[in-house]
Structure formats: structure tokens, C-alpha cells
């Protein structure tokens, strides 16, 4: 398995070029999205729920293929890969799901050992050592014998993080990693994302709507609305952005281009009031 094809751009680990995608032709979710994620960085893809950011993440991981444009990930255009090629690419990626997605029938130890056992033929002592190292990195070596149901949400997410870095991925994807965490767990996850990224020499992509929190950890941000990238820049540039949508979102304002009300007929008509 070559590490990257000669044609790939060495500075970008993910290159999305003019990508459009829709679950059906009538409702495009992504519309002409282009972005390039530099190697070694921690970047954020932010925006409101339903703006297409999770879909973009799924395009990057090769769960969906662009209906137009190209998605080049780790040197491969995902649309051109067959089943085996796609799986080979995914072995070099790690993904943290929103609620961890731990295997509930396996212990914490076995959860972290899962990718090692599935992909590598390692002696049991080595598996033991590797799992303990990964669990130590997220501070949960002592919880190895517990079952996922015995953990809090924050701890479960740390275990899932340990599992996703088990094969030392080059690209880490985080789907809403901060949702539903208490402030301490949140701080732990933020620190881990940065530390693991730097110690593994990986690249991290965080998809989130927790803008304020995420701006503290990322190097660069793409802001999405309605399936398009509407703003991009460093966290400071985003905070200072004059773009009305970004301004409303970053500052959590009620007034702005995003209306409070879902489109509806006139209020009076719904209450069957006679027009005055």
C-alpha cells in the first residue's frame, strides 16, 4: 500500500475541490465546497445544525462520494477507490463519533484492542501493552476492566478516543466531540485533541457547532451555512468577522440572518383570527 500517490499535494492531507452532494437530486446538502486541510494542523468545520458539515465529514471519510467535484483524502480520490482501497484508506484514519459508539458487548480493554485484533496479528502481550499505553494517554488505564455502560459520557468519549488512535492514524476526524460534556470533561477532551494531534504527528478535523469552545483549540476554521463555505480564517479572524451570519453564530445572538421562527404561514392565520 503506497503511502500517497505521486500526484497528491504533499502539503494538504485533505483536498475538497468543488464538491457537491445531495441525498437526492432535489435537495443538495453540499454546494460547490472547496477546502484544503494542511498536514499537521487542527482545523474546525463549523456551522449551524443541518448546514452540511457532518455530511462533509462523511464525504471525507468516504461514507458518501461527491456527486460533483473531487474529494482527495490521504492522496486518494475517494470516488475512485474500490471497497478494499477505501478500507485501506480508513485504516490510516481515526474517527471519534458524537457519543463514542463504543461496542457495548465488549469491555473497555477489548474496545481499544478491537482495531488491533482485527487488523494486526500481534502477540497478546503486545496487544496488552499497546492498549494500556492508549488508555494511559486518555487517563483511563484503571478503567480497562469496566464495561462501557459503567462509564460517564465524558469517560466513554475518552475511551472512544483511545480506540480511534489505536492504529496511530494520520488523520483524525471528530464529529461534535464537545456535545453534552461537563466543563471538566470538556477541558480534558480539548487538551487531548491537541496533545494527541501533536504527539502522533496527525492532522485533526473537528466538526462542531460549539463555536466558542472550538475556536480555542483549532488553527483554522471553515464556516458553513446552507451547504456552502461562507467564511474561513484563523480563530481571531472568525471572531472579528463582519459577515452577519458568522457574527450572529459566534456571539450567539437571537437577531440576525438566521431567523428564530421556522418558515410558517402568518401567525394570525394559524390561530384562525379574522384579519383586522
Amino acid at each position: 500500500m503506497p503511502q500517497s500517490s505521486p500526484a497528491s499535494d504533499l502539503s494538504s492531507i485533505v483536498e475538497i475541490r468543488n464538491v457537491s452532494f445531495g441525498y437526492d437530486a432535489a435537495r443538495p446538502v453540499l454546494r460547490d465546497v472547496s477546502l484544503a486541510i494542511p498536514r499537521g494542523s487542527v482545523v474546525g468545520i463549523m456551522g449551524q445544525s443541518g448546514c452540511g458539515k457532518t455530511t462533509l465529514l462523511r464525504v471525507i471519510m468516504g461514507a458518501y462520494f461527491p456527486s460533483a467535484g473531487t474529494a482527495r483524502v490521504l492522496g486518494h480520490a475517494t470516488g475512485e477507490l474500490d471497497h478494499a482501497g477505501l478500507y485501506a484508506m480508513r485504516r490510516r484514519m481515526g474517527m471519534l463519533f458524537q457519543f463514542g459508539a463504543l461496542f457495548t458487548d465488549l469491555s473497555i480493554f477489548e474496545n481499544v484492542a478491537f482495531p488491533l485484533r482485527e487488523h494486526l496479528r500481534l502477540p497478546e502481550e503486545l496487544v496488552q501493552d499497546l492498549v494500556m499505553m492508549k488508555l494511559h494517554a486518555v487517563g483511563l488505564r484503571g478503567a480497562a476492566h469496566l464495561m462501557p455502560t459503567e462509564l460517564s459520557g465524558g469517560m466513554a468519549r475518552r475511551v472512544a478516543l483511545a480506540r480511534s488512535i489505536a492504529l496511530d492514524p494520520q488523520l483524525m476526524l471528530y464529529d461534535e466531540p464537545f456535545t453534552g460534556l461537563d466543563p471538566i470533561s470538556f477541558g480534558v477532551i480539548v487538551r487531548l485533541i491537541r496533545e494527541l494531534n501533536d504527539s502522533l504527528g496527525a492532522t485533526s478535523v473537528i466538526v462542531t457547532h460549539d463555536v466558542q469552545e472550538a475556536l480555542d483549540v483549532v488553527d483554522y476554521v471553515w464556516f458553513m451555512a446552507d451547504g456552502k463555505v461562507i467564511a474561513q480564517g484563523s480563530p481571531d479572524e472568525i471572531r472579528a468577522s463582519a459577515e452577519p451570519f458568522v457574527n450572529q453564530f459566534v456571539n450567539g445572538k437571537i437577531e440576525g440572518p438566521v431567523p428564530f421562527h421556522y418558515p410558517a404561514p402568518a401567525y394570525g392565520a394559524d390561530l384562525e383570527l379574522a384579519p383586522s
Partner: protein
Amino acid sequence: MLIGTLRARLERLGETVTSSIWRLGFASRFLFYLAMHSGTAMRRFRLTIAQIYFAGVLSLVIILVSGLFVGMVLALQGYETLQRFGASESLGVLVALSLVRELGPVVAGLLFASRAGSAITAEIGLMKATEQISAMEMMAVDPIARVVAPRFWGGVISMPLLAALFSASGIFGGYLVGVQLIGVDAGAFWSQMQAAVDWSKDIMNGVLKSVVFGIAVTWIAVFEGYDAPPTAEGVSRATTRTVVTSSLAILALDFVLTALMFTGGNH
């Protein structure tokens, strides 16, 4: 107006028919893919053995107890009828043939569908709803090979064994009531049974039935689980569908198989 309503009804009917045919085709392709990707389940047979434990061993209590009672009832009812014709010593034959030919595979299959089939569907459906299946795909592990195939083969292997145990337990129940309670001669009970039950015609046909039911029930169970919408309602509907569809499938297949197996002599 009338034509419009009629047309709408016809369209709905057509839609229902095409979507069920499409679904059957999808389920068949799923089975084919599953069979092609069963290497892991066979190579790492421990995975399949774990599923034999969940589907088979944990169903043992309900299978053995039900078998015992069915056998006991058969003996009571059978004796009542047989003694009118002075043939009460054929009680063993009646109990054994009813069980190995019909009741063993069918009742064990129905119990297996409700006990193990529903559990398989719910487990796979919930794994999907909690993104465990997606997580596996992201780790470059094929969930059909790793999750579905061991459950499928575990069910297919368990079912004939459970049906055999059901029949054995039923025959023992028949013995308890017929010989110990009613007082049919033990020698006649066993020797007539031994003489009348044919290995290939009765036993093997019963085993064949239970293999077919095992494939049908487990196929329906894994497919419904894998195809379930990832919501609480979706999983609950899929579980119900597994029990209903596989019970109907067992009864329909039983008729077809019985017609093929036991009518040969009448032609």
C-alpha cells in the same frame, strides 16, 4: 373523481407490490453478500461459537420445557384416541413421529424466532442506532463479516440442534405420561417406536426442515436488524416484523416441505 380515487388506490397497490419485491431482492442480495463474506465467521470460529451460545444455549430452557410439555400433551391426547382402536401400545410411535416430523422443527422454529430471532434483530438494530456499525466501518472492519455473519451461522447451526433437543425432550415427556402415568407397557412403547421411525424418511427429513427454518429465521432476523431505521421506533418495528415474518415463513415452508417429503408414496 371516482377515476381519480381508483387511480390513487391502484398506484398505492402498485407501489406496495414493487416495494415488497424490491425489498425481497435487497434481502436476497444481502444474503448473497453475507454468504460471500462468511470467511471471518469460519476462520475465527470463536466468534460464531459465541453466537451459538447466545442463540442456542440461552434458548435451551424454553426449548426443553416446551418440548417436555408438548410431548406430555401428545401422550395424553394420543392415548385417548389410540385406546379406542385398541392400539394404545403404538403411543410411542405416535409421539415420536409427530415430534420428529412436524412439531419438533415447527414449534422449536417458532420458539427460536421469538427467543433468538428477535434478540438478533434488536441487537443489530441497536448497534446501528448507536453508531457501532458505522464505527466499525470507519475502522475498516466490514460489519457484515464481523457482526452479521457470525450471528447468521450461529443461528443456522443452533436451530437443528434445538429442534433435535425439542423432539428428544418431547419423547421423554411422552414416556413420562404414557408409560409412568398411564401405564402403557414400556417395552412396547420403545420397541414400536424403534421399529416404526425411519432414519432417512422421518429423522433426516425433520432435520432438513429444521435446517431450512434455521436459515429462514436467522436470515430474516439479521436482515431486519441491519435494515432497521436507526431509531427506537424503527428497531421496535423491525423486531416485531422479525417474529411475525419468520413465524409465517416457518408455517408456509413447513407446508411446502411436507408436501415434497411425505407425499411421494401416494403417486
